[in-house]
């Protein structure tokens, strides 16, 4: 019985650890998304500038 309790407590703690781990990974993924967003923004701005130049050259 005592062993079961210990196992159960360990299990709960592990779940907390993994939950915290997933939370941190989620934050990292958000940052990754932001990196992609930034690149998209830069690229779009560049594309728009190119198009604008082409239009102005007409």
């Amino acid at each position: 019985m005592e062993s079961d309790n210990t196992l159960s407590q360990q299990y709960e703690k592990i779940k907390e650890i993994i939950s915290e781990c997933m939370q941190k990974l989620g934050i990292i993924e958000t940052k990754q998304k932001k990196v992609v967003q930034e690149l998209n923004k830069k690229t779009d701005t560049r594309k728009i500038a190119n198009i604008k130049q082409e239009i102005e050259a007409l």
Partner: protein
Amino acid sequence: MIDERFSGEPGQEEESKIPEEPKVEGPRTFEDLLADSKEMLTKARESHRVAYEHAQQMVDSRSQDSALPEDVDSAKKELDALEVEASAVVSDAEDKIGQVTGEKTSFFAGDTSRGPVLEATDADQPAAQSAETASKSQEQLEASLQIPESVKPGSTDYLSYLIDRESLLTEDIAKRERDSEKPERRVIEEAAERNEELRLQQNLLLKLERENKGGTYSSLAEIAPFIAKYAEAIRADIEAAKASGEPEAGGKVESQFYRSTDLLSAAEALISRIREEGVEVDYASQEDSTEQGQREKEPVAPTAKDVLAGLYRAGERSRQDSQNEIHAGKLPSRNYAAERASIRGQAELVNRFKALDHQPTTEEREAFVHELEDIIATELAQPESDGQDREKAASHEQFMKQALKGINFANAARMAETNLAEMRQQWAEKQGDPEFIMLFEEEEKAARDYKLRAEIKEYFLNGTPDVSTAKSEVADQPAVEQPNQPAVMAEPENIKDEEPQNTPAEDYSEDSSEQFAEEPSEEIQDDIDGDMEEEPAEEQVDSGLEQEPASDGQQSADREQNLKATTATAEAPGDNREQELNLERRLFQLRSETAGGVSSERAAEISQEISESLENNHDFYRLMDGAVIASQIGDRKLARSFLESAEKNNVIGGRITELHFAERCCEIAAVYKELGDRNEVKRMTTLAEEKYPQARSWERYQALTRARNWNPFRR
């Protein structure tokens, strides 16, 4: 027992990535505990790997889509650095599990093909960093969500803030959903709702940014109608959903309604702000916003007139405010402050025009020229009622000079000449192409027009429109006041006489260090001056035009007819061109001279001169020159005669499109208006509208505006 924390609702992006807890009642043995731990951590790691690979794919795809290599490299490095953090997070979890179980766990030792791919180093302390982020309190989050008041809605910075806010809220939602504490559903929903709203705004702004083609917002005026339009579209969707009577529509309608209310409030606040700045927003374009698919339609931007007129009014208001301040004793010099405000507004206006100089179409550029000239003419024609004629006259003249300084006509003429030169090289192969001929002649006209404008500019800035005759001609003929004639432009000589009195330049020199320290107009003025310095000498443009070959094939039948008529004795095409230019210059001088009125004796001389020089002439614009001059000297009969001839030479075909025809009708109508012949005005404007009913409203409006505000310096 399955923890409800991991049972998120379907359809939510973040929740879809949350691995489900192994469906076991609890660890049976210590080995089961280890196996379950590994399974949970593996799922977390696997989920992250998918996200990481997706991010990598996105970056790779952008590398083939106009992204700069250095930007792609930078993004990859950032992703890799984040991956180092992820590896450390997983290792940290492994260590902690090892501490709990009392055993050194290494679930993924040697396994680099799955999960975070980079190893953490001692220098990287992502876990602590992430934990710090994760432990942000609600207050901190709220504080970080605030957009500073100094950031203008619609600006690129505003967009960046929105993106940041969205990320923070996404983090917040993820945090709450994964938090070990019992989740508060209501708070999560509120956060999600806010996030959704931000997404909406962000998407809207991104869309606007793309539609704006420049990536930045040059003014609030450009964004407000878009926002208003989208807000209206949302509201229309809501109404449509309500009208549909669908059972599920209720909830959606309600949430959409609140969202759109916020957006509308933002839009209205923005529009209100723009109104304060003096720019009117065209609500008429929103009339059809209830139609299905309105959101996909191209938004209608404010016209050049809206923006320019708004700036002008803003300048006027600023000047008025300054005058009020002077009256209240808050400012030391009435003249100085009024002029300062005026010049600031004008400099803004000029700057605006300069920006337009880089716009894609000639029509837009020309429209701005016309608007600017209209404003100048209106300013000059403004009646004096406050007994400060001299002061105001100086202001008008300064206004005009400032405005004209900002317009690089010579550059525009040079560009048109360059285009012409290129087109001449293509002439042999495209000789039979009517569209090419039309384009060529339009470009030719543009070059001539801009060159003439450059001359006008020189005329007003230096009083020397033409090196050969203009100065002496004008100097010999001082203006004589004729109350019945529109006081469109003051004579340069008069301006010069008055200039030493109370000019802004004088005031600047007296007190410029203090009063102008914070004025943006100084910079603008520097720009204007810089442009002036860079502007090529008019002689360059002249020489370009004079060297222009004039082969028979380059002239349309219309043009040839004009040349034959105007230069009957000419022996060579080059002579024809020179004669035509001389006639144009001479008529321009006469228009300028007669604008302020002339003596009856001089009027008779001018009447005879234009009758002779335009006899048998079939060029619409020369005839209109004659009509304007005749109108200005009060020779109504002659003016009518020229107008009738001009009308006969306004025939659709060749390079005369229906739009050109309509515009010319309006120009004729404008002179009839000056003559007070309402029937003819109505007949001509009706003709214009009949022949060009398909004109977009702004075009028709532009043509009619030109007609209403006809002045001799616009063509």
